[in-house]
């Protein structure tokens, strides 16, 4: 089974050379730490920066330079700043190759819910709705089940949707799943996790073809 860093590490393998990548808050933010050094990649944050670097050294934080999670950041050579409208031009115009974000629920038709629990939690969608409506390559980083052990990989989302039919891949603490033809296709198992365990933790239709390899991370 993977922890949050393990999920991030596995997703980092999906980052290809030349990709512009938008990382959501939470596990996705960790992905930047695990991308291979020989891969050319630039991270965009929708609040208006491209070419994000690591967190600043203590004492070098600049209140005017943050990411969409409101964390202080640095920039790498080649970085640029821009306004919100241009930031979403990049996103809506499909200039960002990969979007990695968290979710509360994912459904077998690619629907995603991650912004609202009616009556309980209403933080807002931030940039997530724009991202999932436009990105062609959306990887969700999430736990396979909730704290009560119930599956979050569903036939249908029960929470208000963030976007419809948009998720292409899901990486959880248990597995890597591809979303296509209204089903989840099991691609990889997390280290030490059996196909049976994944089946049990998955409510949505799960397609298992042949031997399922264990992740290499």
């Amino acid at each position, binding site marked *: 089974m993977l922890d949050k860093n393990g999920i991030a590490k596995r997703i980092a393998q999906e980052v290809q050379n030349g990709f512009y990548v938008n990382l959501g808050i939470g596990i996705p933010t960790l992905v930047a730490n695990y991308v291979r050094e020989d891969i050319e990649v630039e991270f965009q*944050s*929708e*609040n*208006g*920066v491209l070419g994000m670097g*690591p*967190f*600043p*050294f*203590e*004492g*070098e*934080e*600049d*209140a*005017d*330079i*943050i*990411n*969409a*999670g*409101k*964390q*202080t*950041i640095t920039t790498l050579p080649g970085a640029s*700043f*821009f*306004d*919100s*409208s241009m*930031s*979403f031009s990049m*996103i*809506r115009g499909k200039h960002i190759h990969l979007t990695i974000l968290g979710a509360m629920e994912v459904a077998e038709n690619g629907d995603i819910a991650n912004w609202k629990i009616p*009556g309980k939690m*209403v*933080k*807002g*969608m*931030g*940039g*997530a*709705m*724009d991202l999932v*409506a*436009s990105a062609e390559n959306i990887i969700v980083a999430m736990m396979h089940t909730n704290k009560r052990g119930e599956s979050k990989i569903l036939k249908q989302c029960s929470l*208000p*949707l*963030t*976007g*419809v*039919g948009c998720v292409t891949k899901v990486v959880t603490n248990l597995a890597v799943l591809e979303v296509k033809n209204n089903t989840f296709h099991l691609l990889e198992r997390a280290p030490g996790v059996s196909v049976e365990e994944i089946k049990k933790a998955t409510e949505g239709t799960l397609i298992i073809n042949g031997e399922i390899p264990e992740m290499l991370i």
Partner: protein
Amino acid sequence: MIHKKVNNVQEALKGVKSGMTLMLGGFGLCGIPENAIAELVKLEVRDVTCISNNAGIDDFGLGLLLQKKQIKKMISSYVGENDEFERQMLSGELEVELTPQGTLAEKCRAAQAGFPAFYTPAGYGTEVSEGKETREFEGKMYVLEPAFKADFAFVKAWKGDTAGNLIFKGTARNFNPNMCGAATITVAEVEELVPVGELAPNTIHIPGVFIQRIFQGENYEKKIEQRTVRQRS
């Protein structure tokens, strides 16, 4: 040139009244018009509608207006850092319209640029598109979103000149440029107000034509919401 300089925040906010719709730049606490917000608290205007990506934190930014219950309605994309906000919203004291962030930015830009409405894919198929006109273009569905209408826009820039030209810094730029000229009156506060001619014409982010009033801001706190650092190795 046309002079836009006013002497202080009081003069800059002349005409702001209860019940108005206000736009406020900033992302989280980054690039917010701190002086204008402090003055709005002092003016005790009430029942205002605020268009702002976020709602500040409990004791800073728009949180200061929320504390005093001056806000009737918030139009934002993310409001998750503010307990008083959550309390007022869940109790029904505060009306909240949540809008996808890119849609929020473009509703500002549409107002600035004279577009009545625009089609965006964001929110299609979700509750955000309920009751809204939707339309297919080349096999993809879009939601029609109208431009914002606002009485005042309050923006904060790094440098500005007396003709109203603005330069922003880092990610404190965010929504600020898109709100310039998107309201009847746009008020810019700047960290450094310079004489006209000091900003190179090629480096100006927002030309003064979009600004009605500009003033030298004071005592910027620039609070950091998430101070994240790494260790020196």
